[in-house]
């Protein structure tokens, strides 16, 4: 009977490991295994499709007694979740610079966010920490302890961009998500963050593949 019990946990633990590799690197394999079994006991899989498993992991981590020693860890888990969601989301052709030229007065129109694009504003330098763990050997970092934004964009199935973003980019993305026109977003971002070049920030978001064209501009 123990074999079945172990196998049930094994499936959930391995699914969590696959989705949270940086959390595992930070905790070490042995501790991650214990944490994953605890998590799987509280939040067992609800579907046989384990690719999405662990959506509640970051929020669950916040409530663990030992988390005070690693206050940035829930945010690192949130970054890993953005990454997984980006990888599994629908494909769609992203808005290109050429399309923007064709659209012309894009500033007065609305755009849609690319369906695979994920972003968040985090209270800790979690994206800096996540980025430092993407090489075969984690980079040595001494991150500045301040909030920052994370963005994952996947303009084509195999191309993924994962930059840190500043507050102006976050404001623009949030505005576009809520249906503001591009010019309204840029104006608001410019007023809030005058030290940032909002035109350049918008151009970089386009280049990352953060948007799709308005329906009438497709084809």
């Amino acid at each position, binding site marked *: 009977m123990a074999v079945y019990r172990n196998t049930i946990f094994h499936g959930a633990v391995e699914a969590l490991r696959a989705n949270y590799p940086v959390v595992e690197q930070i905790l070490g394999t042995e501790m991650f295994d214990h944490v994953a079994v605890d998590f799987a006991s509280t939040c067992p899989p609800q579907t046989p499709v384990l*690719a999405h498993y662990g959506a509640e992991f970051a929020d669950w981590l916040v409530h663990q007694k030992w988390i005070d020693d690693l206050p940035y860890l829930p945010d690192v888990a949130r970054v890993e979740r953005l990454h997984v969601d980006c990888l*599994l989301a629908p494909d769609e052709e992203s808005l290109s610079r050429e399309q923007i030229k064709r659209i012309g007065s894009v500033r007065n129109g609305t755009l849609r966010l690319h*369906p695979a694009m994920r972003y968040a504003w985090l209270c800790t330098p979690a994206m800096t920490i996540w980025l430092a763990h993407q090489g075969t050997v984690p980079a040595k970092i001494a991150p500045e302890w301040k909030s920052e934004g994370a963005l994952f964009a996947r303009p084509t199935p195999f191309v993924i961009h994962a930059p840190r973003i500043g507050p102006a980019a976050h404001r623009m993305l949030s505005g576009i998500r809520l249906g503001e026109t591009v010019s309204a977003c840029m104006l608001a971002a410019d007023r809030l963050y005058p030290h940032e070049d909002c035109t350049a920030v918008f151009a970089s978001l386009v280049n990352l593949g953060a948007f799709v064209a308005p329906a009438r501009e497709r084809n």
Partner: protein
Amino acid sequence: MTPAAGIGFKPQHYHEALASPAAGLWFEVHAENYMVAGGPRLAMLEELRSKRELSLHGVGMSLAGAAEPDLEHLTALKRLVDRFEPALVSEHLAWSRLDGRCFPDLLPVPRTNEVLARCAANIGRVQDTLCRQILIENPTHYLTLRDHSWSETSFLAELARRSGCGLLIDVNNVVVGAHNTGFDACEWLDAIPGERVGEVHRAGHSSDAEGSLLIDSHDEPVSEHVWDLYEQFVARIGPRPTLIERDGNLPAFAELMRERAQAQGILTGDIALAA
């Protein structure tokens, strides 16, 4: 599909898998790993399918469970089958859902008349939805349930007769179950109706910590015993599509292909079959 040997596809082997010139090579994937909206997983499978035959192997339909197959899960499988047109589609004689909870495992059932009728009806629902036959795999056994009223081989044969499904015989599962629950693996394989068998699985196993149980761990090369039984089985029923399964301790693609070549040699008669 011609009865050639295939291997389980792993994304780590994507480029080598695409470039392999091996004649007849096909790939099997767990259907659940591809029930996602988009992204690199599906793009890789699309590319692979453009060059090779595929087998979709499901692990989550819970066909032996108390409930009918989950409609959302079945719809997701149908979407994959329609998109990738796999040569083979298979599932397990097991359950993995209860009262809305999913267990990522293949749990055993008592082989009773009631379970037989329920499994046959569930397989029928899946086949009707997919508009095609599926294959059902014999599970691994780690304990002996008391309430069986059918032998496993006669249960599988009757299940195939009633539902029209084919059988996927996992020789490693037979060896592991024979060791753990005390039956004769040769006799078991001899009792399987060969004409129902549409695919054969072979994998490696390991011992548990105490050394008393064998575990269907898929983390070792195929054992000599499994090779011997496989040769005898193929000699009796004829060549069938045969999968080399490996999930843990994943070796280099070339090493898996060496095991695959051994199976391919047996299937094509280049390696002498057991007398």
